[in-house]
């Protein structure tokens, strides 16, 4: 396999510091990560997350290279998530990547974190031209590919779905990460508590819903019922806007990706709308739904093979890099 290309990718947009290694012939070879856990009752502090990444980077890298079991020289390019994300966290990953690329004398490859979620999920599920629903702590976006770009058909106008669940869980003194905690309590709840349902065309807005849910919490509503109702309202909003985008784009595949994609109730809802419109439903495997180095490594292969690399001295991170600003040379029409 003389034509095999191998990329090492570093992920550090938020709480996860991850290193993945992927091969153009064999897909993901290595995926190692260390996740920063904020103190109980607090959110991610960017400086603390960066500090965590800084401390964990050597051991994650060592572990990744150990599992790789080939010479480090066989890596053809070093990639990093250039954005979007928390500035200090991004810069830590970028620093490791620049150092490695310089030391190995290999090209440095910039990767967009959200596109990396989509590309790894496409590889793992086999989805070719899907309507993508990306739901995580950093994103809530409904997007489809056309003419060299991911086009955004709907998104949140304020906080993300992951953010909604995390903050609500924190306010209810549930353990972090909030999504799974809310999900397991929701399964035990049954009574529906009315909460604001806000859909604006293909867009959603969760901040009013969060405020209302917090108020209900103060009114001593049953937490199980509240988790159930919060999930039902928030996920129905996402399902409805996804269905609108699906009807509009007439895509034949639906792909659910991002950390919140691991939620079974959300999966059920999105699979129902896909079925209703005769589209195939795909969801990223749970193991790879959250942030990881593998997504960066795999996407780096596609970016690198398209001839894109970045000089170390120009490799500034982009904390606010929008998905639809990235040119995509590697996807077919």
């Amino acid at each position, binding site marked *: 396999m003389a034509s095999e290309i191998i990329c090492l990718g570093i992920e550090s947009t938020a709480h996860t510091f991850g290193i993945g290694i992927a091969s153009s012939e064999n897909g993901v070879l290595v995926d190692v990560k260390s996740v920063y856990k904020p103190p109980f009752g607090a959110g991610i502090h960017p400086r603390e997350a960066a500090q965590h990444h800084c401390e964990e980077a050597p051991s994650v890298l060592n572990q990744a290279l150990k599992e790789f079991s080939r010479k480090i020289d066989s890596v053809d390019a070093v990639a990093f998530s250039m954005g979007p994300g928390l500035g200090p966290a991004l810069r830590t990953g970028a620093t490791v990547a620049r150092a490695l690329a310089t030391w190995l004398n290999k090209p440095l490859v910039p990767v967009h974190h959200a596109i990396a979620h989509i590309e790894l999920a496409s590889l793992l599920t086999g989805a070719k031209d899907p309507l993508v629903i990306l739901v995580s702590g950093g*994103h*809530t976006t409904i997007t489809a590919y056309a003419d060299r770009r991911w086009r955004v058909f709907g998104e949140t*106008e*304020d906080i993300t779905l992951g953010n909604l669940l995390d903050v609500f869980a924190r306010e209810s003194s549930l353990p972090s990460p909030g999504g799974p905690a809310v999900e397991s309590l929701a399964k035990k709840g049954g009574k529906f508590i009315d909460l604001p349902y806000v859909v*604006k*065309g293909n867009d959603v807005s969760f901040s009013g819903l969060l405020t209302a849910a917090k108020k209900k919490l103060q009114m001593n509503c049953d937490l199980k019922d509240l988790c159930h109702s919060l999930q*039902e309202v928030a996920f129905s909003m996402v399902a409805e806007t996804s269905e*609108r985008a699906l009807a509009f784009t007439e895509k034949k595949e639906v792909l659910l990706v991002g950390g919140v994609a691991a939620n079974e109730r959300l999966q059920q809802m999105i699979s129902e709308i896909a079925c209703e419109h005769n589209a195939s439903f795909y969801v990223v495997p749970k193991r790879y739904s959250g942030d990881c180095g593998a997504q960066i490594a795999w996407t780096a292969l596609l970016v690198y093979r398209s001839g894109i690399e970045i000089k170390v001295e120009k490799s500034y991170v982009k904390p606010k890099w*929008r998905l639809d600003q990235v040119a995509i040379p590697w996807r077919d029409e």
Partner: protein
Amino acid sequence: MLIKKGAEANLYLEKWHGIKAIIKKRMPKKYRIDELDTKIRQTRTVREAQLIHNARTVGIPSPIIYAIDLEKTTIIMKYIEGIRVKDVLNSPTFEKKQELCYQIGQLIGQLHNAGMIHGDLTTSNMIVFKNRIYLLDFGLGDHSIDLEERGVDLLLIKRAFQSAHYKYFKPCFAALTKGYKQEVGEEISSEVMKRLRDIERRGRYTSRGELHEDYEV
């Protein structure tokens, strides 16, 4: 006869008391729990009928409502045999496109002037028939003169152009905002445009500089 299965409702073309009519039925959504689903469908059925009626009284082309059935979340309305703006936009000349977008802007302006918000402006919710643009699908609309809601209305149509008609987004959206300004006046137009920018900035991953250029009219 089912003619369109949309995300929001099914459309049937039937004879109703001897006339051709569209029966728009908001179907139960399997993914939503009943309590939520029934409430949403009923509210939207009422809203849509009210708003279409009010839009017509101020001269905005929109289908005549014949009847509504709240139990069945169904509206029976006039059949308009036109083509969706989404499909029209892809064919005509550049000038014609701009003219169409100017008209869309005027329509949105008229709607806002009359104290209404559409709430779901896309190019598939507008039909061209005999050189007039008909507005449809008012289910997410409201009676409001709120700046925020007007801003969201324009954001939605802007997003539609950016995502589905990206090849001619800039000239089209510029023509649209011109039409809007002509209708609501310089002052309100600039306030709404400013709010539109604010809403965009509030969203995820947007920064001042990158968005600014889109708005030169």
